[in-house]
């Protein structure tokens, strides 16, 4: 049963494979933006609404036809709605339902209304985790996106030698599953038998232990950056490819230098790609789970069971038998993530 509970979290886990694809298609990002603005002016929409308001009181025949049309419509939409309801809405509904109860070892299950929410909002362990991923977000995401942008601009500049090799090798870590990546890095971080230990031995120095409590968040940030720079680079590069080359020529004729081209043409042109990458990264940060969960085996005292909100819900539910409270924490976290991602989207899109 608790597996169901985790579905909403897992479906969104970091940047899952299917989502990014459409952003890689040329023109797709600008179109996304225009669509939301021109919705009201959409001719098809206007046609529909005129018909709805101008239609005379429906005669039996017309009503029958309408109902038939509706049925046909449902025939098309039905399979999607069924799957959507089953794998998307049902788990959320079930998590909401679970969050209203309390199951105790003594006394069994009882309805507690919104008590769990009150508890979550005042739970220091939850806020500690949230603060930690917040800090992670503020530092790791700008670094990762900055590096990705730099690489994308370098590749796009056309001045890079071995461009394809460079592009592929930077993207390659994204193809490594997060669990494997964490294991690889976990071995390298080892101060005894790992790379850090070897470096220490070879040069007779003593590097600080990356898995100590004060450094472990940075160590995780390093893994996540390694994993996702290539992915974000590809988003930016795809957006840059769409910019018409003639603009650069015009800029060159006007005497603009390379830096001016970057700030005045390239960056504004890929603005929506930047916003989307940021939103994905925010969601990814808030859902940090794989990396700390794997490294926990190596650094059990540095990575606590409430290190990130997701890890906290996991341990609440799987070792604490507190499915109801875990569902509550997951929902609160989901809502917070949605609010912050939405705020960033509004802000990012407005100035464009």
């Amino acid at each position, binding site marked *: 049963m608790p597996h169901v509970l985790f579905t909403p979290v897992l479906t969104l886990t970091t940047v899952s494979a299917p989502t990014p694809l459409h952003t890689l298609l040329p023109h797709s990002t600008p179109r996304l933006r225009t669509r939301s603005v021109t919705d009201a002016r959409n001719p098809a929409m206007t046609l529909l609404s005129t018909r709805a308001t101008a239609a005379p009181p429906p005669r039996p025949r017309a009503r029958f036809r309408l109902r038939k049309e509706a049925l046909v419509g449902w025939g098309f939409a039905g399979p999607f709605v069924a799957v959507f309801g089953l794998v998307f809405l049902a788990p959320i509904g079930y998590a909401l339902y679970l969050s209203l109860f309390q199951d105790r070892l003594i006394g069994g299950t009882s309805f507690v209304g919104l008590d769990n929410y009150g508890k979550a909002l005042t739970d220091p362990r939850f806020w500690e985790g949230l603060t930690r991923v917040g800090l992670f977000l503020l530092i790791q995401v700008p670094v990762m996106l900055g590096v990705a942008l730099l690489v994308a601009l370098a590749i796009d500049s056309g001045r890079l030698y071995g461009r394809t090799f460079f592009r592929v090798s930077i993207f390659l870590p994204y193809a490594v599953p997060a669990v494997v990546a964490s294991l690889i890095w976990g071995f390298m971080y080892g101060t005894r038998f790992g790379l850090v230990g070897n470096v220490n031995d070879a040069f007779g120095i003593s590097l600080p232990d990356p898995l100590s409590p004060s450094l472990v968040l940075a160590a995780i940030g390093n893994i996540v950056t390694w994993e996702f720079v290539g992915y974000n680079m590809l988003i930016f590069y795809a957006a840059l490819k769409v910019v018409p080359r003639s603009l650069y020529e015009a800029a060159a004729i006007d005497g603009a230098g390379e830096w001016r081209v970057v700030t005045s043409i390239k960056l504004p042109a890929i603005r929506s790609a930047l916003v989307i990458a940021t939103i994905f990264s925010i969601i990814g940060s808030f859902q940090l789970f794989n990396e700390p969960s794997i490294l926990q085996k*190596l650094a059990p005292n540095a990575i*606590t069971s409430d290190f990130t909100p997701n890890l906290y819900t996991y341990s609440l539910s799987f*070792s604490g038998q507190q499915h109801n409270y875990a569902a509550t924490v997951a929902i609160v976290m989901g809502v917070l993530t949605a609010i912050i991602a939405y705020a960033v989207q509004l802000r990012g899109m407005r100035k464009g």
Partner: protein
Amino acid sequence: MRTHITRRLLGALAVVSTLALTATACGSDASDGGGDSGPKDVAAALEKGGKVTVWAWEPTLKKVAEDFEKKYPKVDVELVNAGTGDKQYTALQNAMAAGSGAPDVAQVEYYALGQFTIGKSVEDLASYGAQKYGTTFTSGPWNAVTEDKAVYALPMDSGPMAFFYNKKVFDKHGIKVPTTWDEYVEAARALHKADPKIFITNDTGDAGATTSLIWQAGGRPYRTDGTDVTIDFGDEGTRKYTATWQKLLDEKLVAPISSWSDAWYKGLADGSLATLSIGAWMPANLTSGVASASGDWRVAPLPQWTKGDKTSAENGGSSLAVPKAAKNKELAYAFTEFATTGAGASARVTAGAFPATRADLESKAFLDTAFPYFGGQQANRIFAESARNVGEDWSYLPYQVYANSIFNDTVGKAYVSPTTLTDGLKQWQEAGVTYGNDQGFTVNK
């Protein structure tokens, strides 16, 4: 148009939620029948035959299952590895809550059994006649599975603690094998001084090891009486443990390597981890996991808190329990009985398990077994002696699985920060009190 869609979506959501509600409602009311069948029914059930599903990760059960099927051809035993330790308990708890899919027999470690007995989710085997085995098993394991007249599981193996040490390393540096924990600290200093790469042992905070050593030192931090629970890490036994262990941590004499990690196995093999204080089930792990150090290691009695004592403690070990949700309880009991007593138990001991049965512990063949890994030492004699001297009256929390899962959040701080072990244990105690009260127990009130 838009509101229309929203309304429809909300409608769909409502329908789906309702479905989810009904589904859970159906799931939770699977009732269990009473378990008042005597030994007679067991014989009849064996006659009739059927299928027994066993959830266990203990490798020696495979042979037992085959033997059982041979003896009772109409019974079909299905052995399932549903995960090790808490993974299996989670699956078990879920199956019990769901009312379907629970096994007929489940392996449960002693420290975790309380979680299932308190929820009354395992059968009281006394009604099948299990009380008669009171003297069959050694006292530690038997105490762990019984409560007053009730028998909630039958002991499958045990883990009386012993001291495993790398003789080659000790000899090389001319260090005496410690018999008390004070000598142990001295040996730790001497070894580390002789070769800074050598540590007396590894420790990154392990709830099982810590509670076992407190147990040996005479501490009894947990008391459970029904739903009244007391947690107190301030007693004298606990203080003895923290005083000694704090020295090891302060002087960085224990290696910051987690047990069962790659680095741990490497350290045990190359001599940089010189000793282990661990359960008697360890030899099989050494033989397979640290094969290259064969001949280097020896076994000695656990160092003592007071010179001349012989006190020991249990570390690990598990039992077989019959969930209330089992479909075929009589057959389940028959299998449990077969696997834990008599010929079944002996067969498992032959296959490498450490016995919880007195007869096997005292058998000459068992005691005389020479371990080539330990240079021909008859290590079982030390283990058997330890089993006889396990401190009495220890009990775990009814929610020890959860408590252990947050051990490193609290006590773990003592390993990586200036927090002391005493403070760490105090925080662990507080977290345990909060959780227990939340769960409906009356803790420290």
